[in-house]
């Protein structure tokens, strides 16, 4: 009864307003695109090249609106990460400004009232693009760009979801679907209306390793980078898991032999 009401009521209103097409479109997000990633499977590892290119895409494109709160510059040189050297990570950090500690006079603002800053070090975390949520919303038509350091593990579909969203723009909305003002059509996003404008275009970055920067390539690389940001211990985990399981299999074999020997005469 309640279910029938739930369907009948909006349908009735829809008919009354004479926009029957509105009710006909199911805007559940499409299944994610099943692209391959190097880190899938029990022995998969992150492709270092993809991580470094993905970092470049994050730095030059995504970071304009999206923070990366849980990643410190030192992580860029961690084992199982993008494989930058410590010197490279230091150089990357030095390119960022972070709020400075109080100076000798105990001031944190200069004469003009501007916040004093210093160059970031390895110990610092990636600074967010906006000082607070309100500022982020004010700059993005009221929408809040989510932090990206955990986005891959916080979405059903993981890296495939990120890839599908990034490559899911540019389609023509089906007849009967109206894109909300200030939003963009993306059928891989729940409700199909996404606040993020299409962030990638061909050659929006120039990769130093000569890889051609197509939208698909950029999306695939940044999805890899964000997968690492979500799960930086994945390679260590899989490596340890392999040793642990080999050990347990050998132990099971020994225990099974002992079990058979002990029980030989008991049944």
């Amino acid at each position, binding site marked *: 009864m309640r279910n029938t009401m739930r369907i009948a009521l909006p349908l009735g209103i829809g008919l009354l307003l004479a926009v029957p097409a509105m009710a006909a479109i199911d805007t559940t997000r499409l299944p994610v695109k099943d692209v391959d990633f190097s880190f899938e499977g029990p022995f998969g590892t992150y492709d270092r090249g993809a991580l470094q290119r993905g970092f470049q895409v994050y730095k030059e494109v995504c970071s304009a609106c999206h923070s990366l709160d*849980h990643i410190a510059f030192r992580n860029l040189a961690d084992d199982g990460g993008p494989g930058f050297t410590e010197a490279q990570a230091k150089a990357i950090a030095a390119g960022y400004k972070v709020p400075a500690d109080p100076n000798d006079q105990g001031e944190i603002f200069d004469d003009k009232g501007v916040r004093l800053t210093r160059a970031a070090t390895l110990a610092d975390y990636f600074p967010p693009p906006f000082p607070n949520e309100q500022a982020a919303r004010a700059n993005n038509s009221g929408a809040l760009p989510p932090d990206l350091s955990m986005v891959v593990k916080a979405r059903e579909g993981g890296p495939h979801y990120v890839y599908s969203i990034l490559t899911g723009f540019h389609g023509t909305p089906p007849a009967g679907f109206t894109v909300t003002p200030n939003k963009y059509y993306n059928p891989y996003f729940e409700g199909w209306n996404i606040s993020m404008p299409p962030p990638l275009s061909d050659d929006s970055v120039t990769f130093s390793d000569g890889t051609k920067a197509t939208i698909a390539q950029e999306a695939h690389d940044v999805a890899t980078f964000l997968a690492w940001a979500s799960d930086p211990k994945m390679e260590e*985990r899989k490596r340890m*898991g392999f040793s642990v399981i080999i050990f347990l299999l050998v132990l099971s074999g020994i225990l099974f032999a*002992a079990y058979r020997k002990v029980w030989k005469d008991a049944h």
Partner: protein
Amino acid sequence: MSGQSTYNPKSGFEKWIDQRLPLPRLMHDTMQTFPTPRNLNIWYTFGGILTFCLVVQIVTGVVLAMHYVANAGMAFDSVERIMRDVNYGWLMRFIHSNGASMFFLAVYIHMFRGLYYGSYKAPRELIWILGVLIYLLMMATAFFGYVLPWGQMSFWGATVITNLFSAIPLVGTHIATWLWGDFAVGDATLNRFFSLHYLLPFIIAGVVGLHIWALHVPGNNNPLGIDVKSPQDTVPFHPYYTVKDAFYLCLFVIVFAVVVFYAPNFFGNPDNYIQANPLVTPTDIVPEWYLLPYYAMLRSIPNKLFGVIVMGGAIVTLFLIPWLDTSRVRSCRFRPLMKQFFWAFAVVCVILGYCGAQSVDAARFGIPLVWVARLGTIFYYAFFWLIMPIIGLVETPKKLPASIAQSVLGDSAAAAAE
């Protein structure tokens, strides 16, 4: 503990200890010479596996508590810090979070084992009741633990479950406020849940002690469900069952390790990697898999208070099983009719779990799942309150074997052994 102690202190030191605190005697009698039916199968190894699970949860939990911050503003980040910056923190956390699922997997096998072989029947009623109490404490502990990472599911799960108490007439909202320590789930709630999450496992450990103590009075039931009649029916616990338990425990740990190292987020919900936000409700609030059958029952009933009563009653019913089963025969091996209903019940539990995982208005093959859940709930109650008492009276059990030894070793060997 049952029968005469066979402990014989050899050295002077052992004698000295034995007269003051006979702990070595206790260990000797319960873990070494304890006479155990010789026909226990793989499903009887889960008691040992569960003890292992409890120890793993307590050890990893104590380590995690050293790094976790029980504060609504910091809890989420502190868990992420454990995963990234604490040495082997990711390992501790994945063992602990998946350990809960493995614990419940083992406890469900253990409970269905008890149900199938009639292990709750006289003289083992108290073992069963203590077991259900442990199960109840486990659910509470798991619920409190799931709140601690302070993700979206943590927060909204806590909101849904604590709100159930507000269904109680007259005093409901006051009880909910009292539980929260606030007018909504918040920092005060998180802190008390952390405290209780640390406390309850030790209470579980205590009840486990009673559960094992109660087990060592009548001794193990067995797949035949018949009593031990002579020494030929049993073998000493060590080495027979220590080695058997160790082998199957090792296989269990392999499954555990595969989950921890290769699918650590398999049992989790992606939404719980989004920090708790009281202003944004997730589209579907889903509890952990082990609570889904009860969740399905709760949701299948339109009236909130009645839903809570039905869900609570489903657990209370478990305490009464020893008296709801009227059969004189324990094991389903010799109960052709009950065996079929047992499997039907197991399937219904899985179906209820499936319904609990879907959104409220979902349908499969044109059938609204809420109705499937309603039928499942009715069957759950009918199984215990109608089928169990009636079948025990009308069923003709198969002929029971004369003894465990005869069944295992055959007539001649059993005779020769005597």
